[in-house]
């Protein structure tokens, strides 16, 4: 019984949140890594692209809700998602046309593009706040839990509850589907291969008859899709708030780098490394140990490796250690 | 001068250098040939400290230099050129040469602030020397060109030029000839011989052009699949069945038909 309780506590406080947060980071990191891998710069505007895509979805969701549309137990936002994606695609293509294209044609140094993307970040930032404001927006509806802690306790008779939210479920499933699709696309389709070729050697891609503008366009479309999905899932799970999307950028980049920038598998692995290191290092293991240990050995302190104050700092140390042990990043990135 | 003892270098499961043992005589111009992928460049990289060997040792003048970083080897007089040119792209060709000599007093911060006079004198000498080398390589007109914007062959020349800026003991040349005009290559060959004769440089030369090898090198070492296949004078090597099969081949099959 105690063992079961310990397992449930572990699942509830460490595993499930870790997986869900990891999936969110992974989706974000995938977008960053794609832009880096194919268009060759670190896109600071990714966080705010997520915000804008999510914003469009929120607005459409509200519209649907006012019409009385719903998906039953699932959030209505899923219905609105395609519209959000469409908006994000248009937005990114427009941005590319008006801004990035110029620098691309001029063969500007990548670092210039990084700073330009910072400029875009500012602009998106303003636009989002301009349209929807700076506040929290709630757009979740449908059933909140797949398993709620209370029901779980009642059903099992355990003293620990396990909760599994609908949004967590959706996040994880979507992440798996999206990642699978992306891999299939990149490694199996002509368009995907041409993207990889372009990212490898632009001149030679040209000589193979690949149309660079098409590659760029497809890339932005995929990035917009990924960003919107990530942004909406994140917003459903927590809540939609423009500022947090900017803040998400740091862990997203950390995830992409630790996984090996430019490498999609790395982005996913990186997302989970960051998520789990944040959760486990600062977790107070007391609760679990109390179940596992005989009474006499029960810990008196919290059995916490580090206080949560250092949560973020600690996850960076983990990153460093990972990189020191595995110098290529978890998966070999493009940057070698 | 250089002794390589049972050297191994593995990339994952692949054995690029697989038990190579050889020794380079002081004052010789040794040719290193072998099929593509034989491990010649990798061997160079291990000797020059760019790669760490999986096992085995390298000695220079009796001293164990295995795994010593390249910049230390440079100061011991061991220089190398790169098969794929490694120019300093945003610097002028002259600067590419001037930066080479070690121990310039202007390379310490303190002197840059308070030792201007000395630096100026040194720079003048360096510049003269660099111009001399550029002229020798017939690219004096490119002195102020950015090295990133010269032709492939010119980059190769610059690469060689760098070794001429200092008094080296031993120079490893990785396919200086590839992509270099043959007439110019002859000039380079003459230069190598002169450096060898007059200044006592020892050379190890990777090259696929047998004429060039023949003109310069004695002895010649042929590598294949990561180890030494044969060693001797070029004539001996050329007669070696294994070498012919793996490396030299027997000439064009179609030649006759096309000319007609």
């Amino acid at each position, binding site marked *: 019984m105690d063992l079961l309780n310990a397992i449930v506590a572990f699942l509830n406080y460490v595993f499930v949140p870790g997986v869900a947060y990891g999936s969110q980071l992974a989706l974000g990191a995938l977008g960053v890594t794609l832009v880096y891998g194919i268009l060759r710069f670190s896109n*600071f505007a990714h966080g705010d692209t997520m915000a804008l895509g999510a914003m469009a979805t929120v607005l459409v969701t509200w519209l649907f809700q006012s019409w009385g549309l719903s998906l039953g137990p699932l959030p209505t936002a899923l219905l609105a998602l395609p519209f959000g994606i469409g908006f994000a695609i248009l937005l990114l293509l427009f941005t590319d046309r008006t801004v990035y294209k*110029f620098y691309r044609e001029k063969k500007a*140094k990548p*670092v210039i593009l990084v*700073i330009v993307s910072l*400029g*875009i*970040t*500012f*602009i998106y*930032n*303003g636009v989002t706040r*301009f349209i929807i404001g700076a506040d929290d927006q709630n757009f979740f509806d449908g059933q909140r839990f797949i398993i709620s802690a209370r029901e779980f306790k009642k059903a099992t008779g355990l003293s620990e509850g396990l909760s599994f939210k609908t949004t967590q479920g959706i996040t994880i499933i979507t992440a798996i589907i999206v990642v699978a699709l992306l891999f299939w696309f990149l490694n199996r389709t002509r368009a995907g291969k041409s993207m990889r070729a372009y990212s490898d050697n632009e001149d030679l891609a040209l000589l193979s008859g690949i149309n660079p503008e098409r590659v760029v366009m497809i890339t932005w479309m995929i990035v917009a899709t990924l960003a919107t999905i990530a942004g909406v899932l994140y917003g459903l799970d927590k809540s939609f708030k423009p500022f947090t999307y*900017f803040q998400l950028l*740091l862990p997203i*980049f*950390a995830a992409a780098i*630790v996984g090996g*920038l430019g490498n999609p598998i790395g982005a996913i692995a990186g997302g989970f490394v960051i998520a789990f290191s944040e959760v486990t290092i600062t977790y107070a293991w007391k609760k679990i140990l109390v179940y596992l240990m005989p009474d006499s050995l029960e810990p008196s302190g919290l059995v916490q490796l580090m206080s949560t*104050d*250092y949560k*973020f700092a600690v996850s*960076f140390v983990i*990153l*460093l250690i990972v*990189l*020191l042990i595995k*110098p*290529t990043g978890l998966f070999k990135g493009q*940057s*070698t | 001068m250089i002794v390589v003892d049972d050297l191994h270098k593995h990339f994952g499961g692949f054995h690029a250098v697989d038990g190579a043992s050889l020794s380079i005589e002081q004052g010789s111009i040794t040719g290193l040939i072998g099929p593509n992928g034989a491990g010649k460049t990798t061997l160079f990289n291990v000797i020059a400290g*760019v790669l760490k060997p999986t096992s085995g040792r390298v000695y220079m003048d009796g001293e164990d230099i295995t795994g010593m*970083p*390249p*910049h230390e080897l*440079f*100061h011991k007089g061991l*220089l*190398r050129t*790169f098969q794929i040119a*490694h*120019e*300093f*792209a*945003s*610097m002028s060709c002259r*600067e*590419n040469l*001037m*930066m080479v000599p*070690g121990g*310039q007093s*202007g*390379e310490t*911060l303190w*002197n*840059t*602030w308070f030792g201007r006079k000395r630096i100026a004198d*040194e*720079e003048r000498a360096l510049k003269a020397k660099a111009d001399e080398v550029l002229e020798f390589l017939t690219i004096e007109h490119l002195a102020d060109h950015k090295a990133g914007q010269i032709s492939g062959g010119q980059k190769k020349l610059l690469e060689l030029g760098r070794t001429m800026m200092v008094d080296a003991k031993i120079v490893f040349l990785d396919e200086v000839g590839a992509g270099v005009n043959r007439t110019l290559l002859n000039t380079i060959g003459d230069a190598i011989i002169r450096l060898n004769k007059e200044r006592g440089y020892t050379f190890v030369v990777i090259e696929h052009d047998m004429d060039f090898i023949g003109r310069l090198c004695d002895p010649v070492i042929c590598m294949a699949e990561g180890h030494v296949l044969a060693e001797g004078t070029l004539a001996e090597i050329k007669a070696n069945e294994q070498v012919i099969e793996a490396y030299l081949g027997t000439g064009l099959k179609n030649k006759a038909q096309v000319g007609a």
Partner: protein
Amino acid sequence: MNETLKNTMLFGIIAVLIIYVGFVQSWNSALLIVAMGLISSIMALGVNLQWGFAGLFNVGVMGFVALGGLAAVLIGMPPTEGAMRAGGWNVVGALLLGAGTVFAAIILAKTLAKGWLRNLAVIAMLVIGFFVFRGLLDPAVELVEEINPAQTGYLGGLGLPVLLAWPVGGLFAAAAAWIIGKTALGLRSDYLAIATLGIAEIIIAILKNEDWLTRGVKNVIGVPRPVPYEIDLQNSATFVERAASFGFDPVEGSTLWVKVLYILLFAAVLIILMWLSQRALHSPWGRMLRAIRDNEVAAEAMGKDVTARHLQVFILGSAICGIAGAMMTTMDSQLTPGTYQPLRFTFLIWVMVIVGGSGNNLGAVLGGFLIWFLWVQVEPMGLWLMNLVTSGMAEGSALKAHLLESAAHMRLLTMGLVLILVLRFSPRGLIPEK
């Protein structure tokens, strides 16, 4: 157009902008922009040294700046009465012990033969050391933090002249840079990015949470100044007289005078640093750096100790950021760890370097001034823009209200637009590398 002329013109434009602010807003605003512009320029100089000349990617500027700020507190603030006696010595002891443990672990790792035994010994050393360290530190910290927590609750500083904090801030940053450099330089460059990003976060976390050192998020207020207080000037008859003779009233005169003094101090620092780095860069040392930046492998093969040079430049650049950080905290007269945000202290500096022209010190200085000017002045610009846009609309319309309401957000938006426009017309920065 010739280059000197163009550069003079660019700086001239900045000067005109600032003078314009002086006339339209106030000379205090204008001088403040100059002062902060000088500090920003120094930070940009540091980053430029690392990135523009050596290609080292430091995204932890914030951390080094914050360390400089810490120096200002530790040097300038008076010691807290009784704090040393209460637990201060134990804290110092614990820190020495901690450092000793790490040192011993390194020695152990170096001397013992490779193998699991060594790993075990090192880990055991570190773990035991950690617990002894915490055992000594925690109670001492508690004692220190108990001393009047609302006002002090920390060790305080040395009570030395605060100007001394500037070089010390540089030293702090240099020390941190040395640690990062030793572990992360010479390996893949991603390490450096992640390491600097991480260390910066860690430094801020420490400043925020180690109350005994910095009062944490409770902030240290009232760091002493190297220049007189305005109030004292206003109360000094001679000053009031002098000000009056120039036609200033005491308040304006004193506030301006204090800023002028700061500006002179900052400008002196900038000029010295500028001179040092220009000299260094236009010499074989600088040539060596450029060679390394262009091609590390070849530079290494040409006998240049790439790792050592990288470490040197990294430390120098970081130290410059540290100096600037100490200067800034001195001018703020307070250390507020919560204010250290990557956007403001890392990326804004990067924007300065790139917009100014990476690889060119003059460019970095120009970028520092320009971007800082924009950072504080685009807000009125945004408001002005919104007023213009809405001027045709009916009074009281919801849209108009919404637009005016959003004016604050225009700050970032305008900033973004300016950034993109500058880079569009001058993609290598305003004063590009030669």
